[in-house]
């Protein structure tokens, strides 16, 4: 957690009116610049004086980055669209319930009113050592404080750790992955469109970032194809408190069932690793099976294969197993009491 909670040190504040202008500024100022969306993550870093950019580029005046548009091949959500707008949008609720559910379970109403989709997907980890400004691997040092005998790590990774054991805390990320969304990223030179899944990276790829966004790049929109629209969705988030709390773990899934068998399926979890994990081996294993309790059990077991607990987060393994079980098999009334 935070250390100082002070007023921010000074920086140049630039407030572009258009995406082009924003992109130009970013291209020029490169790694000196910090993109400011809703500010919920940004201001923590700035006030704690842990990140000290020279320039802050505030996107709140860029209208074209805002809003939800229905296109012929899907729906496009501007990066600056708030979580509340996403959660409440009728088209999204109708077609992509898993996303509406995920967005509506983020943090608290106030934070959802202010937090943006681009920001939610690009937010940094909540690891309390890293956020307290300790010189860990992720901050450029050569130790992971959470993974020492002294460390406290109940909210850290059970999968995919590599030196750093921090997790990605986004609730909407796994929903976008199961919807096969594409993220639109603009740089000085070009516009890239990448699969949601590929946006996120683990410490094995880059230990200092949770995603592929490079300094100088702008996240402009999310495009969701109709591929998974109105499929059978499941989203569940487990948190200590019922509101205003990050996930201990979450799961999102989408499936089409025909003749009582799982036809096509996608499933992803977050807060288990440094990036949201699409569980491809589970997807393969359950295809062709009935979406019932037995398949759910099998899926849950398969999901946690290779999971490695730290000192205080062993609970995440059964938790993940059970969330995947429910996502695939449905919430059966358990036979145990």
């Amino acid at each position: 957690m935070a250390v100082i909670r002070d007023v921010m040190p000074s920086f140049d504040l630039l407030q572009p009116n258009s995406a082009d202008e924003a992109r130009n500024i970013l291209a020029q100022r490169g790694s000196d610049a910090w993109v400011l969306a809703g500010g919920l993550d940004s201001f923590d870093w700035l006030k704690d004086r842990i990140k000290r950019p020279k320039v802050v580029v505030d996107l709140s005046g860029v209208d074209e980055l805002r809003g939800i548009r229905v296109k012929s091949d899907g729906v496009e959500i501007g990066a600056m669209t708030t979580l509340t707008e996403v959660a409440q949008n009728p088209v999204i609720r109708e077609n992509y319930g898993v996303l509406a559910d995920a967005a509506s379970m983020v943090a608290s109403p106030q934070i959802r009113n202010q937090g943006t989709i681009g920001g939610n997907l690009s937010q940094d980890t909540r690891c309390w050592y890293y956020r307290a400004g300790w010189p860990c691997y992720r901050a450029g040092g050569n130790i992971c404080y959470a993974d020492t005998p002294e460390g406290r790590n109940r909210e850290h990774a059970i999968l995919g750790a590599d030196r750093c054991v921090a997790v990605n805390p986004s609730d909407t990320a796994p929903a976008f992955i199961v919807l096969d969304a594409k993220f639109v990223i603009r740089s000085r030179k070009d516009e890239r469109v990448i699969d949601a899944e590929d946006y996120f990276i683990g410490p094995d790829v880059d230990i200092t970032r949770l995603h592929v966004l490079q300094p100088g790049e702008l996240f402009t929109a999310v495009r969701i194809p109709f591929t998974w629209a109105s499929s059978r969705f499941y989203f569940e988030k487990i948190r200590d408190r019922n509101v205003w709390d990050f996930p201990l773990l979450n799961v999102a899934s989408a499936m089409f069932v025909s003749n009582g068998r799982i036809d096509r399926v996608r499933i992803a979890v977050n807060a288990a690793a440094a990036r949201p994990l699409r569980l491809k081996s589970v997807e393969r294993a359950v295809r062709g099976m009935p979406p019932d309790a037995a398949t759910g059990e099998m899926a849950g077991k398969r999901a946690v294969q290779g999971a490695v607990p730290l000192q205080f987060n062993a609970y995440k393994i059964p938790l993940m197993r059970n969330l995947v079980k429910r996502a695939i098999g449905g919430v059966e009334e358990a036979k145990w009491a």
Partner: protein
Amino acid sequence: MAEDNQADSSASFRVIGTRPIRHDGIDKVTGRAKYGADYSFPGMLHGKVLRSPHAHARIKSINTAKAASLPGVAAVITGADLPTIASRTENLGEGVVNSRYISLNVLARDKVLYDGHAIAAVAASNIHIADEALKLIEVDYEVLPSAMTVDAAMKPAAPIILEELRNKEEGPDKETNVANHIRFTRGELAEGFATADFVVEQAFTTAMVHQGYIEPHNAVGIYSNNGFATIYCSTQGTFAVRSLTSQVLQIPEGQIKVVPAEIGGGFGGKLGIYLEPLAVLLSKKTGRPVKMVMTRAEVLRATGPTSGSKIRCKMGATRDGKLVAAEIWMAYEAGAFPGSPVGAGAMTIIASYQIPNFVIDAYDVIVNRPKTAAYRAPGASNAAFASETVIDALAGLCRIDPIDFRIMNAVREGSAQSAGPPFKRIGYFETLEAIKNSAHNKSKLEGLFRGRGVASGFWFNAGLQSSAVVNLHVDGTASVMTGSVDIGGSRASMAIITAEVLGIDVTTVRPLVGDTDSIGHTDVTGGSRTTLASGQAVYEAAHDVLRQLKERAARLWEKKPDEIKFADGVFSSADEKISPLSVKQLCRQLAKTGGPVTGKATINARNAAPAFACTMVDVEVDPDTGKVRVLRCTIAQDAGRAIHPSYVEGQMQGGTAQGIGWALNEEYVYDRDGRLRNTGLLDYRMPTCLDLPLIETVIVEVPNPAHPLGIRGVGEVSIVPPPAAVANAIYNAIGVRMTELPMSPPRLLKAILKRRHAEAEMTNAAAD
């Protein structure tokens, strides 16, 4: 029963028992009320505190030169600027305090004893410069091994936290972390257990938790050249701040004035001092007012939470449900200085039951954590989590309804207290009956993984000293001043009592909270004492006014004072030729009959009476995730007499909400080397409104026979039952006994899996 008592009270009172809008309400909801941080003065400087990053370290040197020379910095102080003082203990109303330790806590001297321990303070022209200056203070530490838990601190080779600490048992030569061992016994333990058909023994662990008041600690200190100091601050006790600051700074009490700001919550956490002496000292050094306000991280790291604890509780009962013996071992984390509420824990843990044989061993243990402060019925919630869980298990073994089991064993008038004289008239039985008869208990709880639990709580309540003045105005309105800071709506109660006695409209009474120069000594707003003790002072001060008014009427009518009758706000005489006068009319005659009328009273109340509460909780447990949802909650509590029922209910609900947070989510998370990890409210998880059901309340009124209005005090006991009630409900939902707080999803899931594992092994064993 409860209804009967309530009917009684409304019949005999005109204003008491009604629910007028609180007098301070509009200013509070419109932002006009002034809280501590709202005070500003011309030329004011801003102060900040440098805090230890280590749990335990020797301070080899402190160099403040660079900080002092930063432009904008006006003064830097360290522990060397505070006088050294000898041990001296004083009772503040919620436990004994030692001014030497308070001084060492205000600024560390040779050693820092916990993460967040204050080391130095800076005054600068703004807080940012002050913050920058803190970074320029160079401290050379020799980091020492720390002891974070009672287990670690009680080990033979534990690091010694306070070299000077001794206890009677271990003698004058033995360095120790055990500040005190208390023992209470009755009967013969072995004989008692020999008669038991069922014995339950369990070990419990509870986490250190914070009171979680919204407003952080703050103080403005103004030191004047004439040697007088004024302190504006948010506190539960202006006179306590005065006395403690006087001791720490060695300034005579009469030269310190403490002005209470509105208080944004305290719950026991604002009985002591942290910033006050620093603000005064910095003001003395700079000649300017100095304001200091903590951040949330400072509040969590360095102000008093309440103890985490370890409790082993063994109890026996006969088959027909009679408790026969109890053996209890309990150790509480005091923080870095002696004074956990383990004594109160020991005195409350089985106080509600008639148990002929028991031994209670209680240990006050210092650890490298912030010095604990009072928190609503300090020590009792930890204790009840243990005893009320074991009692629930015994009721189950006896196959007796848990409420009936408690009724069968409940203390009543004349029962011996486990520690103290026999009980006078108490309302435990009535409280249990009220829960038994509640709509909640009569409702059916259906559905999978749902369970209902009950638990009870006991708290002594305090009396102590209070002063009150009632001023009558020419227009027949009145003001009533006490020295009691208003945390829970006490202004409304003071106005109600004044209006009741004087027969005037409650909205025409203006309740005030005086500073230390404007009102006589008044002890802290704590110990559930304010409406009882300050309320009684107000009651007597209003009667003083009434007596004087009768004299005035007598003078006016040329009668003797005892010939004057007073009823419903009207003075009259048996003489029919004299037309009666209302208070308002008589007020116009005051100048003529001798001048203004002011009533006053001071008391040292010795009539505090215990409070009991019983709480019923329905939960739903998700066995796949360990998540607990509280579906319904009802609390019955004996208030003695509810002066303003809404604020009684507010106290019942507030304490229950905090108790549920304590039960489910709240905990200090320290690294193994003693650094606090969760220093903000995002991951120090207090409950939000979505974590709580509507908390239903049943006010029980068994009047305190020793109090003129029957008041007992209602502020604290409501926090005692929830942890055990939730744990008992979880057990009834899924058959898992939780013995560790908080019962967060990770912990509960672990316990569920452990239980499943054990079951699977038993099945396997059976199959073999």
